[in-house]
């Protein structure tokens, strides 16, 4: 196994009496897209700030690109914070060049990279436009470009999709894919499970500052157990107690999830449905979505904003 690009060992961060991140350990491998999932306030941003050495951990170790002092490798890391901003009076190309220069890129190089990036992402004509005159989507793109202009090996994106319309969300997904293809390692946090499901190789889920799961989607599903989806206008209550069915959960509408015990026979369960007079409009195996897994693992009650953004 290659050396991880980024690892946390028993990292804890307290603000006064409040523990934002509690004994968190995980590792990100080179070249992967690593999803960082958690509710608002779960400790995502604090963890990412510890990685960037903006706040130091109260205890534990943070190792980035082989260094325990992330400050030393700052120039090889790009960081897009959750709440974004640029100098409103600065021009697009100047903004990108400025942040690249702060990361040690020489002046002429920074300027030419800024122009090239804007050109490549369809903003060439806005090079000399002030940020305040750009649309929100364009400004977000400029911000992302300013984070990658110094060609970082590791890219940390905090909620990169929030506030983007679907078209720009797709553009960003493409960009992230392209960066991975270029050999970068990408860590991004989100509470929108669809993006994570599509993009990420592996996930970390945290709740209340603690790790609740780390691994691939398949591993998460395996942990969760097999399930069937039954579509019926009737009440499936009579199916309780049928051998092989561990529990029944409504999925909304006429859909119900039947969680199965290990080794349960789905044919026998279908037979049981007919036997108990439950109308079967649909029946079949179903891969649990990350969305549901998240609720399961994080033990979270669907907070209104999570529900809305996930919908």
């Amino acid at each position: 196994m290659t050396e991880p690009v980024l690892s946390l060992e028993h990292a804890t961060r307290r603000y006064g009496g409040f523990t934002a991140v509690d004994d968190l350990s995980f590792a990100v491998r080179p070249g992967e897209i690593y999803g960082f999932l958690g509710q608002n306030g779960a400790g995502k941003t604090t963890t990412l700030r510890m990685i960037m050495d903006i706040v130091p951990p109260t205890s534990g170790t943070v190792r980035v690109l082989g260094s325990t002092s992330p400050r030393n490798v700052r120039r090889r890391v790009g960081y897009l914070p959750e709440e974004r901003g640029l100098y409103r009076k600065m021009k697009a190309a100047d903004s990108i060049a400025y942040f690249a220069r702060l990361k040690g890129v020489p002046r002429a190089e920074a300027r030419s990279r800024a122009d090239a990036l804007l050109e490549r992402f369809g903003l060439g004509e806005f090079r000399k436009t002030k940020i305040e005159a750009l649309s929100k989507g364009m400004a977000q793109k400029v911000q992302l470009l300013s984070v990658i202009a110094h060609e970082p090996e590791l890219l940390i994106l905090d909620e990169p999709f929030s506030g983007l319309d679907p078209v720009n969300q797709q553009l960003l997904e493409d960009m992230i894919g392209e960066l991975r293809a270029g050999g970068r390692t990408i860590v991004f946090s989100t509470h929108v499970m669809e993006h994570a499901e599509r993009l990420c190789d592996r996930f970390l889920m945290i709740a209340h500052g603690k790790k609740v799961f780390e691994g691939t989607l398949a591993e998460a599903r395996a942990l969760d157990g097999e399930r069937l989806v039954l579509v019926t206008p009737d009440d499936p209550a009579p199916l309780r107690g049928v051998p092989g069915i561990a529990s029944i959960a409504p999925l909304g509408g006429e859909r119900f999830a039947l969680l199965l015990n290990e080794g349960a026979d789905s044919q026998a369960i279908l037979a049981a449905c007919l036997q108990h007079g439950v109308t079967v409009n649909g029946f079949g195996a179903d891969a649990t979505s990350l969305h549901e897994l998240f609720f399961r693992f994080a033990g979270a009650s669907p907070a209104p904003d999570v529900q809305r953004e996930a919908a």
Partner: protein
Amino acid sequence: MALWQLIAQEYRKYVLTRGFLLFLLIIPVSALFGVAAGYLNAVSQPVRAFTVIDQTGRYGAEIDQVIENRRVRREIETWDAYVTGLEAVRDREFDLPEAFRPTEDDLTLDRRAAFAEAGGIEAANAAIAEQLPPGTPPAEAPRHTLRRIEPPADVPLSGDLAAAAAALRPYLNGERQLPANEAEDASQLFAALLIPADFDADGEDAQFWTTNLADVDLREALREALTSALKRSAYAEQGLPADAVAEIEMIDAPLATYKSDSEGDEEAGFAEFAALYIPLALAYLLLVMIMSVGGMLLTSTVEEKSNKIVEVLLSSVSAGELMAGKLIGLALVGVTAPVLFLLAGFAGLTLFGGADEAVVAIRDVLFGSPLVPLFFFYFVVGYVMFASLYLAVGAMSSSIQDAQSFVGPMTIVLILPLPFLQQVVQDPNGLVARILTWIPIYTPYAVMMRINQGLPLWELLGATLLLVAFTGVILFFMGRIYRNGVLSSGGAPKLKDAVRLASTSA
């Protein structure tokens, strides 16, 4: 490296703005306006024709004398300014007769008489002409704007003054023109002075008639003439001859100023006054700079904080670098305007050939005293102390409105000693001066003003150590507040939060 970027960014952000460029323009433009207004005023001032109906027959000569004195006075003032300006520009002293030599003191009667006797401004121009390169424009005599004319023929000169006034009204109100030959270039009567036959200090009033009450020049001249005439007759009644009175009135006590602790027994000169006024100027510059740069520090910090730019910045540079970048970058913004104006002034002097003298004077002042570098030391320390306070307030605020609640009291504390500065200047080792010296936030001001005035060494060292220590402590805790504050969100800063942030190490 990154620090340099931060400084350049702060500097560019404020200097390359329309507002700053306009600000740079305002001062030369307003100076030009001032000059233009003065010039227009001098050129366009109308000739004021006035007439006097004097039933006593005693005051006409006195009035003419006062008007003439005023004219000579203006002529001398014009001439002196002309010569002083030429001497500064050519860097030489002209060889002139005593009557034409400019004086720094107020105009004496002697000088006035001598100047007029020597032939006035025309003779003066002739005296200097050979010493000037050909083509130099001569001094121009100011226009003579007050002119006394004879009353129009149809105005009754004796009898009831009311009749005379009634006859004069159409002329004063512009309903009738003056006869062309009488008035020369003035066609309308500006004012009339009517002196009744029994006019006296405690007799009947003289009457001044005009439509223009705003222009008091003429009225004051006439009042002066009548007053001095009345005084002279009063002196004569007491038995004092007119000559003796005039001589007594010319007495002016000679008083030379020496500085007891400066070398030599020469009269106090430029260096002594420079030593007094440079610290005063620096103290005010410090105050002005803190007030203006403080606002920029606030907006810059609050903008980065509310835009969340600060988080991106902090992923690239440390909070300490960020703070230093702001302090230095904005200090440079603060001195840009004064430096530009100085350079412009210097360029102007070079153009007119007076630069050498100015350089010598500036060098003498800057390097003549070992104390001058100290002024700059206090200037820098004072700036760092106050600027870090503003930074900390900015770091704790999410918006400018939030910041205002802290800035108000800070500004008051900052300008509190202003009323006392005069006292410090006049009594540099008095109680007020000593108290201000030992309050660190006022130490830079107080020491700058006392250092040339026999400030005891132990006080200087003690207060300076205290100031440096205090500034160090302020910088340390404000740095903490800045580091901890810029990432937190919340409303207006509270003292409680400040204490909490300052006591958190990271």
